[in-house]
């Protein structure tokens, strides 16, 4: 069980049970991709399809960011021609996609994961190595939003 040495933490967060780490899938090379294998620790907490959908969407975002094609060539050549000074004022395509990912994760957390007592951490915070899922104490039918998703969640248990 979690040990608190700070009352502030007790007030802010429910007790953290464990963290599950979804690892990178290197089967297609060094592109950023996460495994869609469902971790067994989350069996009772979330439906497989939901997590799979999240991971697949994230993978598609990363694939879009790392795509080597016309737009990346244009960006690369233009930047090279300006000795890469243009990056001081312009945001790279990768950075744009990262912002999209960040808002997607936040949205997913609000809609799907927080009501189930889970929390996704943006992989960029972990060096793009893992997708960290924090598992909090299961409060049964509790949670911030008594939405219809809770009933479908409890049926899976």
């Amino acid at each position, binding site marked *: *069980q*979690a*040990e*608190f*040495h*700070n009352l*502030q*933490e*007790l007030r*802010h*967060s429910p*007790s*953290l*049970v*464990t*963290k*599950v*780490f979804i690892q*990178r899938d*290197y*089967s*297609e*090379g*060094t592109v950023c991709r996460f495994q869609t294998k469902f971790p067994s620790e989350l069996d009772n907490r979330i439906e497989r399809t939901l997590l799979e959908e999240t991971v697949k969407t994230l993978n598609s975002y990363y694939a879009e*960011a*790392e*795509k*080597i094609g016309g737009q*990346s*060539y244009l*960006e*690369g*050549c233009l*930047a*090279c021609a300006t*000795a*890469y*000074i243009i*990056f001081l004022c312009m945001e*790279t*395509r*990768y*950075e744009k996609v*990262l912002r999209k990912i*960040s808002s997607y994760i*936040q949205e997913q*957390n609000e809609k799907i994961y927080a009501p189930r007592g889970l*929390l*996704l*951490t*943006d992989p*960029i*915070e*972990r*060096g*793009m*190595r*893992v997708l*960290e899922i*924090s598992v909090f104490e299961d409060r049964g039918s509790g949670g911030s939003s008594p939405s219809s998703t809770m009933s479908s969640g409890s049926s899976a248990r």
Partner: protein
Amino acid sequence: MITRKVRKWEKLPGKNTFCCDGRVMMARQKGVFYLTLFLITGTCALFFAFECPYLAVSLSPAIPVFAVLLFLFVMAMLLRTSFSDPGVLPRALPEEATFIEMEIEAANGNVPAGQRPPPRIRNVQINNQIVKLKYCYTCKIFRPPRASHCSICDNCVDRFDHHCPWVGNCVGKRNYRYFYLFTLSLSLLTIYIFTFDIVHVVMREYPDTPLASHRLNVLEVLVCFFTLWSVVGLTGFHTYLISLNQTTNEDIKGSWSGKNRGQNPYSHKNIIKNCCEVLCGPTYPSVLDRRGLLQEDTPIPSSNPVPQTTKTTAPLIPNEHTPDDAKPSIAASAEKSSSPKEEHPAATKVPPLASPETDAETSIAKERAH
């Protein structure tokens, strides 16, 4: 307890030095880098001072103009290579490290007492080629393919090429193309200066030229001559590597050469495609949040716990962490945690880690300062 806000770069492990409040990142030894700067700027200064006036008048003013542009490009590429994050992989936080250790234990099964556990290796199949991912004891992660640990900077670097003392930094995924453009443009600059030095010597026929400028001319020619062979050779070598989509590290280790080793699974088998991927690929962001803020609690009388890195020599089961290991992992978690809370010392010894770390939502919402 005094709580102060520090930038994350101040707490990063590894042997890098940081400047401009975390914007600049370099290796510790910078002596050779200063030498590089001195040689380039010195030779170009001599060229501009003594050759260009004559060449501009007798041949064309475009000659010094182009030289200036080329020189600026060389410097921009050099500084970009030297000052940027090569693609350092941050070390695993305690929970992640414990999770990985447990996976390893599960995979190894029961090792009879007294026997050495098998080496920590994960096999991955990439393009019909089995690639072995090694475990890094310093960073506590399984290194991604093509990553390697630089002992000079004490970091794992993604797509590690080599550590270059001339630029004072590692060359990895994020700055390889700048490094290549640096060597290429420096080759062009050296050839350019060398050529016009010779032209100058050949064209000049004034008998009353002051001796000093002759000597400086000779000095330039000498520097250019030696630079030429080394830098042009290096550019050629890296052009070869790029066309095969290999890193210097892989080339030295002979990872993909010879029949027994198999073929390079990262190569597109097409020179143009390989070049395009390396030189015109996406610009990868830094995953090291150097300028993010961190709250640090320091006890009033004593100083901050110095962030230590633990080099575990033998595989350790989480419960067997020695007291020495527990303390650095507290420091490590304090430096790496994006939340303002501290880890409880005992929590690091109990798997699964039940640490009261604040939710990551604050860090998602928080703007990445990079």
